[in-house]
């Protein structure tokens, strides 16, 4: 996490320095700088949505196609808390985590538990689960778009550079910054849990050798359930934090599923820091290509690049060498 922060400021500082020289000659440089800065907004969303998947897929090897629906559930929890208790968005985050984690635990107990070691069957089961969850939400809340409010103190933009007339040239909205910070904070907490606590050690032990862990007295079933629930809870937080940028609707999670998968596959699943690298690479390249060409084309190019990457480095960019 620390590495990333220094890296990102490094990039902006570099561009800031370059911009000084360009301010008289080209407007383009400023626009691109602004775009790269705003690209962090995309990076933040990718990081948030990818993190939960990094747990369920990266650690537990469950191909969870219902990941998007857990994001959606988190957004709906926020919607319910806001519309019934007029709660501030930030205060709804713990509720979103608890509710989606609880649903995740139930799902693990009823479905996933029976399918460990059969990735194809988890794929089918979670795909179906996604349809069921969307259907239930549609029955409860109807298909109409709902909306949640962003807190007022997070409106407005942080202006880094403005031109002579006072118009902002390089600026990023506070809410986008907030998303990035939440993403980084969750990554930090998750890394601490995994590498700094005995629970994390047990999780890693179970992933590496389930039978051996069992012999050593680890309650693997409890560990599995806890880990899956945690991954789902993270997706729920993502849903809460993203929801003010768009509207809340049953199919909303689908938008994030593919992106989250690209992030996880690109970054590699063995180290959580790979998620950070994956979201940074995909988010910023998407932002840059979309700015220079256009949005649909940028998606095509980035997706193609990910396919090529998987071909030559199926284990992703950040992986540890394993003895098999």
């Amino acid at each position, binding site marked *: 996490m620390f590495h990333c922060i220094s890296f990102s400021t490094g990039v902006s500082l570099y561009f800031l320095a370059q911009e000084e020289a360009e301010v008289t000659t080209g407007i383009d440089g400023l*626009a691109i700088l*602004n775009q790269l800065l705003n690209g962090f907004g995309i990076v933040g969303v990718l990081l948030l949505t990818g993190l939960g998947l990094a747990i369920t897929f990266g650690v537990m090897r469950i191909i969870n196609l219902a990941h998007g629906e857990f994001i959606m559930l988190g957004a709906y929890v926020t919607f319910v808390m806001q519309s019934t208790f007029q709660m501030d968005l930030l205060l709804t985050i713990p509720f979103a985590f608890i509710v989606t984690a609880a649903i995740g635990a139930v799902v693990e107990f009823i479905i996933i538990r029976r399918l460990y070691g059969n990735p194809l069957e988890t794929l089918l089961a979670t795909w179906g689960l996604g349809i069921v969850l969307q259907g239930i939400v549609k029955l409860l809340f109807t298909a109409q778009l709902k909306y949640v409010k962003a807190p007022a103190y997070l409106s407005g933009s942080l202006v880094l550079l403005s031109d002579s007339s006072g118009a902002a040239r390089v600026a990023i909205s506070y809410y986008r910054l907030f998303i990035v910070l939440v993403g980084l904070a969750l990554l930090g907490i998750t890394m601490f849990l995994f590498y700094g606590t005995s629970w994390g050690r047990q999780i890693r032990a179970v992933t590496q050798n389930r039978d051996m862990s069992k012999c050593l007295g680890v309650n693997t079933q409890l560990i599995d359930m806890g880990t899956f629930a945690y991954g789902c809870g993270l997706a729920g937080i993502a849903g809460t934090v993203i929801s003010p940028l768009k*509207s809340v609707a049953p199919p909303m999670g689908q938008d994030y599923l593919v992106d989250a998968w690209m992030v996880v596959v690109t970054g590699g699943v063995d180290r959580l820091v790979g998620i950070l690298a994956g979201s940074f690479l995909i988010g910023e390249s998407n932002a840059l290509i979309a700015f220079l060409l256009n949005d649909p084309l940028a998606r095509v190019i980035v997706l193609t690049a990910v396919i090529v990457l998987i071909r030559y480095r199926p284990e992703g960019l950040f992986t540890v060498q394993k003895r098999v």
Partner: protein
Amino acid sequence: MSRFVRKTSRRKFLQYSSLTVGAGVLAACGNTSSKSSSSGSTADLGENPIKVGVLYSTTGSIAIVEKSLQDATFLAIDQINNGTGPWANNGAGIAGRKIQMVVVNPNSDWDLYNQMAKRLIDEDKVVAVLGCYTSASRKSVLPVFEEKDSLLYYPVYYEGNECSSNVIYTGAAPNQQITDSVPYAYKNFGPKGFFIGSDYIYPKESNRIARAELENIGGQVVGDEYAALGTTEFITIINKIKAAKPDFVLSNLVGDSIPAFYRQYKDAGIKAEDIPIMAYPTTEEEIQAMGPEFSTGHYTSFNYFQTVDTPENKAFVDEFKAMFGQNRVTNGVMEAAYLQTFFMAQAMKKVLEEGDELNTATIREATRGQEFNAPQGRVKVDPDNYHTYLHSRIARWKEDGQAEIVFSTDSAVKPIPWSQALYKGRICVHPTPDDRSNPTKETGKDLEPEFL
């Protein structure tokens, strides 16, 4: 042993899950079997009801919009069957016969629209179909209706450049939505427009027409950007707008891209006073979904707004809310879905009163020239091109999410299916009676705007 248990339980799980999936498929197909009467009230449909197909998705990505069109259709059919609302002077039903709806759900899948249209016509033997929202779904069912010579009532503003003998178009043609809004934006905001839209046929065609109109009056398009359908990440497009410094943004984004775009637009610090958005698909429904503070000061060009001041509209809004909930809003597409049901019913009434049989040819001929006091004002089906005379309006969105109408034609505008900026002088005249020959005619002249 434990392995065995695990295996069987997995097999069992698969059996159960396939059962569930099967049941789901059955349920989806089961919808085709005539679901009679409207919205739950299992009223007696009496002798010899008239079968009408209702083809809107209530699941999938476009369900959010199409469900509200279905609701408006249900309201209209309920009023016709019970002889209330605009149908109060005609008695219950159409010349004594009630409408039996065959409601199907194509699940937002364009291919399923095609299959379900076939089923409605071949198996359920409906005499007409009310339905479709996206141009993609209309293009998908069009060959079916033309091949089987059946009739579709289509309630949506669209890109034009189509004139089928088997479709009654009750939404806006380009000249009823674009033609007034482009000069309005040019005059009130400035000459430079930045065009955005979702990446499919309607927004691209619509923007192509708007570009031609803007350039004709001396304006300039400083940007033209499209986002994949369903995109909710607009940082890049917003940055391009900031860099291009246009006088206004013309938006043809649809679906859940709309709330996302308006929210991020304001979040990025662009004020409505500086660069207002002129949009076509942004209606009361989408504004309710984004929160009105994000749309305040932006504009929409449409035929109908919930604030239109007519007694018919007041009744429509009250009855819609009474049936579907006080927190619901009405919008232009819903109003079109509502009014076209009355066009159909009036045409059927005419056929039955003349002692004819209800079939495609008789209903089509009877629909031509039908007039109706719709919530938006008096409207009429053009007897030549089967599009609808509609009012052209522009509104500025207020803090409460409702429209302040800033421009309105005095009466309904005659529809011109072909964009005159692209195809000068091209008109569409179906012969009487319609023998389904090619209706396209080139006059080569400028068409004067005509009103009802």
